């Protein structure tokens, strides 16, 4: 069902998945004048989005291996600070070198940040310790970059709140049980509302699959294929705010190499393994021990800190299966137009990515959706300041 340009009734988009990507997409599409219904099987952000460590990426973590990803991150970082003011702990972050290898990586990091447009400042060990007295006193060198902290749920709630205010229908506890099609064109979804057990159909001009690591299951209902590899990692929350700045280990991404302060807690993460299904992840004890070991190298107080919680979250990585840990797969995002890849119209999947780039993922997806429907409306999400997260409950 394609929308003719200039038709009176705006096209209706159904978004499957209430994580950060779905939230940002609902916000974007509604601003472009479309009608949006978002369905999520649980509470909003109850999938992967709610569980991440809350890092507002400067992009430095990706800059050395992928300059484009780094550049994209810092742009989104700035856009988020502008459109969602007051939603971040904006204390910047450090990349800390503990060994000569780290120091060598640091030289490459400085050059990579320069190339990606990520502001950075080199610090001697003394200068770093003045900023963060809790750091390992034997550090060699540090690099200051504009990392920050955000509440994994409360930032997306601002997108939800603004989208709702602008007319989007957000339906949590509403699970997609089937995708309806006619002649190789998706026509809508069948959902079960778990608050009362009733099933209903929702007709759509386009269905967007934004279900993160659960995307494959949704895609299967539309009889298309989506190469998403769920890759979980363990995170710890320790009692006590052990640092004010985000503290990263200055080496290629590895287990336990980041500490993110979050109100009165310190989040230590993360690890990486592969699973076939994103539910029932478990929390491997040796991963928990590894978090303590690696975290304590950066801030010794981690060693004795009491554990508030330990949990796992599955990243939705793009790419086929067959890797060993998941770290070799890209952290970029991709939008699949299934008309091109599978010959099925009316169905688009957005997957991959990370929390910091959710808005960019949504912009690209909205561009694809609008192009397919023949709608020419620009994206406004770079500049629209969002409603406060509390508005979600009051509209």
């Amino acid at each position, binding site marked *: 069902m394609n929308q003719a340009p200039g038709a009176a009734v705006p096209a209706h988009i159904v978004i499957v998945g209430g994580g950060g990507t779905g939230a940002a997409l609902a916000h974007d599409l509604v601003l472009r004048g479309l009608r949006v219904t978002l369905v999520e099987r649980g509470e909003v952000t109850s999938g992967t989005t709610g569980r991440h460590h809350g890092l507002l990426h400067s992009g430095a973590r990706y800059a050395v291996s992928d300059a484009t990803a780094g550049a994209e991150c810092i742009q989104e970082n700035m856009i988020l600070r502008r459109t969602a003011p007051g939603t971040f702990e904006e204390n910047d972050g450090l990349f800390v070198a503990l060994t000569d290898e780290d120091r060598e990586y640091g030289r490459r990091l400085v050059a990579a940040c320069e190339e990606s447009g990520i502001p950075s400042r080199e610090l001697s060990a003394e200068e770093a310790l003045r900023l963060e007295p809790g750091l390992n006193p034997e550090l060699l060198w540090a690099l200051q970059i504009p990392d920050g902290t955000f509440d994994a749920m409360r930032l997306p709630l601002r997108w939800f709140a603004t989208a709702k205010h602008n007319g989007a229908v957000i339906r949590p506890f509403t699970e997609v049980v089937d995708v309806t099609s006619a002649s190789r064109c998706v026509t809508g979804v069948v959902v079960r509302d778990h*608050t009362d057990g009733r099933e209903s159909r929702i007709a759509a001009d386009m269905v967007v699959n934004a279900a993160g690591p659960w995307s494959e299951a949704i895609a299967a209902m539309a009889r298309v294929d989506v190469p998403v590899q769920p890759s979980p990692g363990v995170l710890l929350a320790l009692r006590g705010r052990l640092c004010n700045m985000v503290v990263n280990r200055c080496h290629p991404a590895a287990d336990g190499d980041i500490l993110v302060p979050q109100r009165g807690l310190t989040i230590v993460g993360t690890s990486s393994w592969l699973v076939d299904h994103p539910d029932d992840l478990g929390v491997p004890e040796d991963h928990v021990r590894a978090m303590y070991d690696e975290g304590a190298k950066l801030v010794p107080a981690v060693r004795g800190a009491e554990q508030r*919680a330990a949990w796992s979250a599955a990243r939705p990585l793009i790419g086929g299966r067959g890797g060993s840990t998941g770290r070799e797969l890209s952290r970029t995002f991709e939008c699949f137009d299934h008309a091109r890849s599978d010959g099925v119209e009316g169905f688009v999947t957005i997957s991959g990515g990370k929390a910091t780039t959710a808005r960019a993922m949504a912009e690209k997806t909205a561009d694809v959706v609008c192009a397919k429907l023949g709608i020419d409306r620009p994206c406004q999400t770079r500049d629209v300041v969002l409603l406060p997260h*509390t508005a979600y409950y009051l509209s």
Partner: protein
Amino acid sequence: MTEHTANDPRPPAPEQLGGDPQDTPAPLHPAPGHTVTFRVSRSSRGERPHFDTFQVPVEPRTTVLDGLISIRRHQDPTLTLRHSCFHASCGTCAMRVNGREGLACVTKLEELGGGTVTVEPIANAGALISDLVVDMVAFFERYAPMGQPLVRESELGPGSRPAEGVERLERFEDCIECGICMSACPISATDSRYLGPAALAAAWRVMSEPRTADPERAMALADVDHGIWRCHAAFECTEACPSSVDPAGAIMRLRRTAARRRLGGLLSGTRSNR
């Protein structure tokens, strides 16, 4: 929850591999180890709550939230509950467990002392949507108008300085908006107009550190009959708060401020600041 090493990443239970979540839930194969009886409040559309009983396989690390998710995944996919962060930051998994308020994600079953685990939704904070889900509207209607910013100055470390380019060290406010304080408060239970501990604690924070908010407006909202003066010092909110907000202390400090202002007004012959 099953333990497994990094060298053998696959969870051992075969029914968890692949599969469409829309299949009928896999039959429960309890791992060696014991099970716990969960008695969970159920309600369709917020009507006629009743209890359903489930046997849930558990391990030392298992939390109430793990148990409920296990029920949803393997026994009853219609169970509705709120959760998001798994680490006491989002506040959505607030529940009453064995009659006491708490966050399900950090309430370990081994700390509950054995026996049946009774799980009910929190009270007083909103209308019941279904099962354990409350709409939180009553909470936010009182809390949001105070205008408390999400961010406050960080008190960490007398030795810490902000990095160059960073104006002041900051951190998120303690309050995670879970509603546990309102649920534990005996006054919120009986007075539909009482602002409740969370809103009043927010008013105190705005008085202490206004940032972008208006402290006089917050004080005006709080210094009313069904605001700070309704509290009867049960202190249950402070005891139950999972995030060290101390709402009762905030209410009493607001009262002290209000009392001083009135006394000062009396002594200097000016009208009190209402």
